[in-house]
């Protein structure tokens, strides 16, 4: 009898703990095409920070794709629908991943990729540079001199992943040069603090450069207070003679942040193609019951006048870009235009 009572008590405790667990945690969202679609649309609806500045109508995307998602929608069809929704945002900080099947879709990345392929094929190092050296195993930071000219050349390929303090050594090396071309073509971005650190070595003073606001609630206009960002003067010496920053369509994110700060200096100009126009922080990976992951932009960056370059990019003083046939023939129109610009504006040959 005693054993029976003990058993009943044990069953009662286990049953009450199990039901308690469901009460506390709630029911898990199901893994149906409809539930995955609703989760994906809603999560972006609540967290995406750039609907207003990019002029997106996310409700219209719901209306367009909602009827296409039914209980019989296949996994491949659902993937295609979500990729199309993702592509609508045209924002390279917005991704969707299927890790198990090794699929990734980066929104609006086609033009960036095309620019990057042209850059990769460009033999400009041997055709235009001398005393070239790479200061990083991944070639993220390179220093050289333009052939037969007193003009320095720096390549910055990423805004993290290398020792940023090397910049001081390189600034000293180029101290006597008449000008520097800072090449941030195909800069993959990284850390905006890293960008500001580098820019401080070219600084002519403290300038109000931009503001950032983070999404803090589900409403379309629920943003944090604006954080104001300023350029700073850093390092033992700064290069304040003429600088041309050269860019392409694959100059993105923290690479563009670097340019935002650099363009606040009077001696800095931009030559090349318009940059990617993706300034936001990217969210953490988000997860769907189907096992896919996605990310999106959660931040709004505005210039001091309140305008946004998101979806637009930094527009250069002189717009020029290389096509594949240029680089195959050994010509880098961007470097040549930058050199011509230095001659025309500053008389530097």
């Amino acid at each position, binding site marked *: 009898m005693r054993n029976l009572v003990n058993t009943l008590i044990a069953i009662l405790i286990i049953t009450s703990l199990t039901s308690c667990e469901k009460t506390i945690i709630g029911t898990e969202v199901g893994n149906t095409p409809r539930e995955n679609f609703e989760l994906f649309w809603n999560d972006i609806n609540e967290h995406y920070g750039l609907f207003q500045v990019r002029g997106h109508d996310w409700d219209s995307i719901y209306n367009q794709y909602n009827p296409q998602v039914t209980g019989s929608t296949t996994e491949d069809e659902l993937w295609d629908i979500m990729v199309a929704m993702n592509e609508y945002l045209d924002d390279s900080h917005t991704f969707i991943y299927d890790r198990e099947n090794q699929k990734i879709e980066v929104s609006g990345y086609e033009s960036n990729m095309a620019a990057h392929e042209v850059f990769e094929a460009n033999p400009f190092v041997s055709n235009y540079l001398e005393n070239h050296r790479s200061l990083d195993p991944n070639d993220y930071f390179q220093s050289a001199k333009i052939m037969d000219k007193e003009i320095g050349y720096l390549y910055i390929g990423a805004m993290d992943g290398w020792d940023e303090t090397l910049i001081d050594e390189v600034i000293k090396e180029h101290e006597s040069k008449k000008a520097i071309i800072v090449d941030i073509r195909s800069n993959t971005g990284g850390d905006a603090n890293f960008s500001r650190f580098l820019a401080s070595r070219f600084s002519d003073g403290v300038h109000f450069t931009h503001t950032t606001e983070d999404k803090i609630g589900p409403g379309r206009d629920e943003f944090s207070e604006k954080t104001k960002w300023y350029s700073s003067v850093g390092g033992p010496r700064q290069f304040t003679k003429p600088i041309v920053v050269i860019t392409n369509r694959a100059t993105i994110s923290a690479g563009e942040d670097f340019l935002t700060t650099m363009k606040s200096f009077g001696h800095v100009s931009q030559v090349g193609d318009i940059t990617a126009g993706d300034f936001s922080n990217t969210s*953490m990976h988000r997860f769907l019951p189907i096992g896919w992951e996605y990310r999106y932009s959660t931040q709004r960056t505005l210039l001091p006048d309140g305008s946004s370059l998101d979806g637009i990019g930094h527009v250069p003083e002189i717009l020029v870009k290389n096509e594949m046939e240029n680089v195959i023939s050994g010509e880098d129109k961007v470097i040549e235009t930058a050199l011509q610009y230095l001659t025309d504006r500053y008389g530097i040959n």
Partner: protein
Amino acid sequence: MKKYIILISSLLLSILASGQTNSLIEIGSSKTYNHQIGLSIGSNTGIMKDTNFSPLHYKERGILYKLSYENSKSSSKNIFFSNLAFSNGSLKTNASDSLESIYIYGDIELGYLRKFYTKNKKIDFALGAKYHLDFSEAIFNNVYESFTFNITHRLDLSARLNYQINEKHNLTANLSAPIVSLLVRPPFSGYDDELNENTEKPLALITNGNFVSGLKHRAIKFDLIHRYELNNKLSTMVQYEFNTQSNKEYKQFQNQITVGLNYKF
């Protein structure tokens, strides 16, 4: 992990050896001890849902280590105690094996209880309060891909029922719930500049939160400890703990079982 197990085993054996040596010295003595320290190891299992991190439910599993200290005189009604718990494990979802995340969980308590009811030296009941820090962190792949954390600093109401079953066996039940909590959570967007700035300021990182009442952050911690006295200094203990917390974004339900030794000095 093996290193930790060897370390814990060595500590337990040292305490056991020390207890047995001292027990020989104390034979025939009715000396009472004011301090006791406990060390135990076991498992933590549970379910976690953090909407800031993911819409999915996650099963948490990990090895759990606990360390406790208590100061109480038999002639006094005052009990001072502190507890530490740490678990290193994983989070898994039903959605996909590829979404498994690292999960770290910890618990620190500092408290005071006052006995206000005693019956035949067999049963006593105590009430008091404790500072309770509960923290957890989930990391998916690495912190650049996804992470979340939940830190709560709580002022808990705490109650204890102690039952001396016989000369060797003792049963203690503890129950606590927060009156007020300081909740420290990632921002709505999961990550922002403020969090980035605070990553190099640990104190700011673990205190940058919002105060909420026990109604908005509902939590209960219950544990049941059975002690078997090996000698007048050393006892074995088996502990079951049920731990739950729930607020708007974060919900958790844990079951923990540990076994260990308790040493009086």
